[in-house]
């Protein structure tokens, strides 16, 4: 299958290793990966912070860039939620019937990475090997936005060598929330402290998720506390194999 990657602006800039892992994983599974260089940002930060007008050209750009793509893979649930939940309304409000139709046609072709693997490709065992004690953090957008349920966990359970431990209070927000982490830094820190306690109590070495945004926040706190726990995007665990090593 030909899969078009929307890496997202922050993964592109801050977490290239995640994008590389997605490419390695999908190619290993026999798919062709395409990366349109015109892509930038879905507009989520603008939209959620109240700059909805500024987000509109970014939506148009996204729709334009991915118009031809058959299957679009996005390794970030919050960006998928932005597109699914808000693009239709934004298009409608623009009063541009052509745009409304284009968004409508685009949505069924968009998949978050774990969704793509399990729902579209019908896979749970992707042949990964990762010999670490791992706990999974369900980001709010993956849980309540995309309703992924246990999809990411089903993938993780099939990873060889993994010691998967359950994170208590898995449905509780870590306190990132985009610009919330800066605008309400103190409350965000209090939420982070609770999440870190839960992560540390699992004695996992690795905390994983389908969103690098939450992980950047959780890891930021864990590293400041010198907790000795690292965070790794799900794509990197799934891309790791015994033969090729960790992604």
């Amino acid at each position: 299958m030909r899969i078009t990657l929307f890496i997202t602006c922050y993964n592109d800039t801050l977490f290239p290793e995640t994008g590389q892992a997605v490419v390695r994983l999908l190619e290993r599974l026999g798919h062709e990966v395409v990366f349109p260089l015109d892509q930038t940002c879905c507009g989520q930060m603008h939209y959620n912070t109240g700059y909805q007008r500024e987000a509109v050209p970014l939506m148009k750009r996204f729709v334009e860039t991915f118009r031809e793509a058959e299957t679009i893979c996005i390794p970030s649930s919050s960006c998928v939620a932005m597109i699914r939940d808000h693009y239709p309304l934004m298009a409608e409000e623009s009063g541009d019937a052509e745009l409304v139709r284009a968004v409508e046609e685009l949505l069924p072709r968009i998949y978050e990475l774990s969704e793509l693997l399990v729902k579209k490709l019908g896979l749970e065992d992707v042949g990964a090997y990762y010999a670490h004690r791992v706990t999974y953090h369900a980001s709010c957008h993956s849980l309540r936005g995309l309703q992924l349920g246990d999809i990411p966990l089903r993938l993780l359970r099939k990873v060889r060598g993994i010691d998967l431990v359950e994170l208590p209070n898995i449905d509780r927000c870590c306190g990132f929330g985009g610009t919330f982490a800066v605008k309400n830094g103190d409350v965000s820190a209090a939420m982070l402290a609770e999440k870190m306690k839960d992560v540390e109590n699992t004695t996992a070495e690795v905390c994983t998720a389908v969103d690098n945004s939450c992980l950047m926040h959780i890891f930021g706190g864990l590293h400041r506390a010198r907790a000795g726990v690292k965070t790794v995007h799900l794509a990197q665990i799934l891309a790791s194999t015994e033969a090729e090593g960790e992604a």
Partner: protein
Amino acid sequence: MTVRVGESARALPFQKAALPLLDDAQLRKNVRHATDTIQRKRGLVVAEQTDWQELRTAASAIKRHTLKHLDTYLTQFEERFTAAGGVVHWASDADEANRIVLGLVQQYGGKEVIKIKTMTSDETRLNEALEQAGVHPYETDLAELIIQLGHDKPSHIVVPALHKNRAQIREIFLREMGLKELGNRPEDLTAAARRFLREKFLRVKIGVSGANFLIAETGGVCIVESEGNGRMCLTMPEVLISMAGIEKVIPSFEDLEVFLQLLPRSATGERMNPYNSIWTGTHEDDGPKHFHVVLLDNGRTSILADKESRQTLHCIRCAACLNTCPVYRQTGGHAYGSSYAGPIGAIFTPQVLNMEHAQSLPYASSLCGACYEVCPVKINIPEVLIHLRGRVVREQKSALDPEALGMKAMATVFGSRHRFEAAQRLARVGQWPVVSHGWVRHLPGMMGNWTAVRDMKAIPDQPFRAWWKQRQKKQEKQA
């Protein structure tokens, strides 16, 4: 956003109001304990109600339908309520509502009133208005009594004194009730309140209440409560004055079957709360002889006019969104500046209350969506929060605000591939003053809030797209 009349309530922006609360270890423990307890109970009784989602769908549809025909349902209520012996008053804003209530109290010659917990009277600051005119209001809900005697402010919609523990409550009661002795078990404290209030229930001639539901079809009013103080206030006085937001009307008696199943389970985690009262106007030899309802607008019609936030008016004040909210969990209710705390407060207050810094409230959320998931009437609170943020930006932020400038600049950057790539390069090169050994530990300005508690990896040398381009080139060469 809407500017309400009268003097605005003093309040700090949410992020500032939160600071002392975050440092109050006792308060945070109390809030965690209370919200965890209610949530655990809620979880059990929601699970056994196998048609929960169908009930939510029905409730949300009934509310949407009612709001769409609000003028008809309100006038229908007015007509039937009047026919049943009641008197309807209309109030455009808080001041007018208070004037009406005070006028009625004076007309009936009252110097005291007994009150059931009434969110709308908190909203209009009725107690202040009554006291200024020499009328003493007695709060009769146990938690409201604790708040009133403690000269405190409510911190939760359903359990307003959850931030106080038994020792703190005992001190308040000893001092304010003039008691010499008092145990500190909840039973002892409750018994003290029972004694303190019983005499007032039997003596005071005027009751003031809110209303959970107004029934258009019958002109009936429904109040849901636990302690029996509500029934006391509804049946013992000669005069009853109920203040209700115009959104509290529902079309039919039958519709109650939906809300009476959703509200108790959502609010206190009970299958049914101990008492629901439904009554219609005045009844022969049973309850008050005079019954007045004050229908309050106070900004609600402007919410009604805003297509995207209209759903705010679905709210049945169950507080499930507070109990599940990870932000509320850290701060409790006082950070929200009014008695509408938590997620619902974050959307309701800025649209209705005349409160300083109310525009900080739509930002007091990580948009985690837990509130939407539990809301029994399916208010998509995150969606409304985002919408209100948009209104704050468009209506209140100057174009020269640093955040606005930054956001516009970012939007321009994302508007072109080349600008985006240039910005990636610039950030990478420009970050050297803040990077040490591959880590960023202190950022300037607003971003300092990030590095206050979090480290950050330096921006890597090669963004993903550079790696991709390089790989493409290599592959092309090989081919």
